[in-house]
């Protein structure tokens, strides 16, 4: 309510927010937090995005964008760093395709939603969207009254980092995670063959070059090494052993990569596969609520619906060749007790954390909703 009043007052005195930018209002009840530096040598003006494959938020309201068409990661300083208590008032948004279409002045059938995420600092939902003909890529916020509003990316400071690409035809950034001083992005090329990760330390300087590491993982279901396994879903986590990335694929294994090993810059990084959802399933997206032992890792899984996983399941012996497969099948097997059903996820294609207890879900029908996190 207080924020609504502040915005209303601003409008009255002629200080309306710039069109296309998040309607950010300061919360003068709390002192401004000291924010870390995330980008160096920032640029301004048109960032020249060729695509917006994937978006995620890192520290201090910085939006990480996968621009695979240009083999780049672009990081925007949104300035959206104050909690907006009205950010989740959009429950009646209806169909997100329609809202994006309305914002662009086109029919909803011409739009594509590529990713949905939530800025943890403000609580605002951000949407990567495009026109189907590829003539437009952009980022939108969902306003408190349920509209999609274009973010004026050219009005923000940004930096870009290129990564090497072999086949010269462009790539696709399938996932990005920012954690513990690092950003990790999963990239695939035209041939789909390589499972590659780009790892960069924060802060990121404009013009830096990202290095690729090819990943190799042990696939428990068919007891084989995988290199042809593009990553389609990731989450980040920290425990007593440090920061790590959980990744999943077109097939069902979930693989743990230590950030320390990814950051070493080796040509190949071997992941550990403590867990597998079993045949016929694919993780569509992850979301993590909480920290440490109290955390829950949620996964929306095709042909299953959803699961809630204890992070301790990802602690495993690295000698994977000698490990027995751990396959999730709801059979009551004691080995599976660290995974529970989480039906509220309903095979959402995107999950994001709204706050300590709720998740944002996006479905390929265009439906966007907030749901209380499934409890164990």
């Amino acid at each position, binding site marked *: 309510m207080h924020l609504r009043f502040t915005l209303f007052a601003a409008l009255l005195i002629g200080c309306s927010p710039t069109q296309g930018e998040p309607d950010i209002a300061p919360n003068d009840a709390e002192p401004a937090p000291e924010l870390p530096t995330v980008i160096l040598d920032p640029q301004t003006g048109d960032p020249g995005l060729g695509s917006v494959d994937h978006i995620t938020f890192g520290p201090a309201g910085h939006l990480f964008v996968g621009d695979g068409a240009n083999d780049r990661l672009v990081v925007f300083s949104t300035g959206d760093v104050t909690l907006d208590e009205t950010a989740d008032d959009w429950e009646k948004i209806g169909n997100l395709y329609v809202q994006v279409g309305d914002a662009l002045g086109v029919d909803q059938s011409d739009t594509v939603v590529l990713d949905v995420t939530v800025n943890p600092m403000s609580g605002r939902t951000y949407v990567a969207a495009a026109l189907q003909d590829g003539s437009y890529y952009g980022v939108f916020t969902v306003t408190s009254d349920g509209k999609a509003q274009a973010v004026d990316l050219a009005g923000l400071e940004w930096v870009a980092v290129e990564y090497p690409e072999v086949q*010269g*035809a462009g790539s696709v950034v399938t996932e990005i995670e920012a954690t513990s001083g690092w950003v990790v992005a999963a990239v695939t090329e*035209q*041939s789909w063959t390589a499972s590659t990760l780009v790892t960069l330390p924060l802060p990121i300087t404009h013009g830096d070059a990202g290095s690729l590491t090819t990943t190799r993982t042990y696939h428990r279901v*068919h007891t*084989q090494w995988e290199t042809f396994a593009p990553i389609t879903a990731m989450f980040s986590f920290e425990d007593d052993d440090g920061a790590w990335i959980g990744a999943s694929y077109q*097939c069902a294994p979930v693989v743990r990569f230590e950030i320390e090993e990814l950051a070493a810059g080796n040509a190949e990084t071997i992941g550990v596969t403590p867990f597998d959802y079993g045949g*016929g399933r694919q993780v569509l997206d992850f979301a993590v609520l909480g920290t440490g032992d109290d955390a829950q890792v949620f996964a929306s899984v095709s042909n299953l619906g959803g699961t809630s996983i204890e992070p301790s399941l990802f602690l495993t012996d690295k000698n994977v060749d000698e490990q027995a497969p751990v396959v999730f099948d709801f059979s009551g097997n004691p080995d599976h007790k660290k995974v529970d059903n989480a039906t509220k996820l309903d095979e959402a294609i995107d999950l994001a954390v709204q706050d300590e207890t709720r998740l944002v879900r996006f479905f390929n029908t265009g439906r966007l909703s907030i749901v209380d996190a499934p409890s164990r």
Partner: protein
Amino acid sequence: MSLLLSLFLLAPALAGEVVAIYPSTDVLPQNHLRFYVDFSERMPSPRDLFAHLSLVDETTGETVEGAFAETPIWNRARTRLTVLLHPGRQKTDVGFGGKVLEVGHAYTLRIDETLAATEKRFTVGPMDRIQPDPETWSTQLPEGPEDPLVVFFDEPLDASYLPYAFEVGDLPLDVALGHEERSVRLTTPGGWPAGELDLRRVETVEDLAANSPERAFERRAGTSVSKPMPFEVRFTSSLPTR
């Protein structure tokens, strides 16, 4: 390295048409993985893209359900679409419902008119678990500066890798794929300079089942991971005698 991929598989097409589908061979291994569909111009990518693609088993007359990994991968120009047969089915024992392709059956990959009406027919042979072996490759060396340098392979190779696989010194190369991607023809603008030149493979190549010279696509745990498989040919180019 400046590369120009010359496609000569199909006649020039009208706007928005399919100009090539790779692999161009009409016999594919049962563990085949990727098709590349080349369009004549930038294409839209509808939300239900894969509803406009189908794979029909002509032997049974039925459409193969769940045939594709439904993640659209376009090239930068949005003129090439990678169509990946579901790896969870094409890999061994993953459990996504058995192989997409049956040995001995005939299939049609069909793209409907929403994108650009076309189809590719093929039959299916046995699984290919044999890695490409550069030691079996051969070359046709140029006799004059304008002659192509041709590298012949022992099987069809994946079309997306070949344009980047070879270098000759630091010369810019034009690369044309040969019949059924069983060869590449290399030329350089202005012709080969006189003197000794080294042809080398500098990037990986894969066969239709994603086996590369360095590693098999599917590897049992405990098997060797990779080994270098160089391909180098030194040849002498001379100025034309006339």
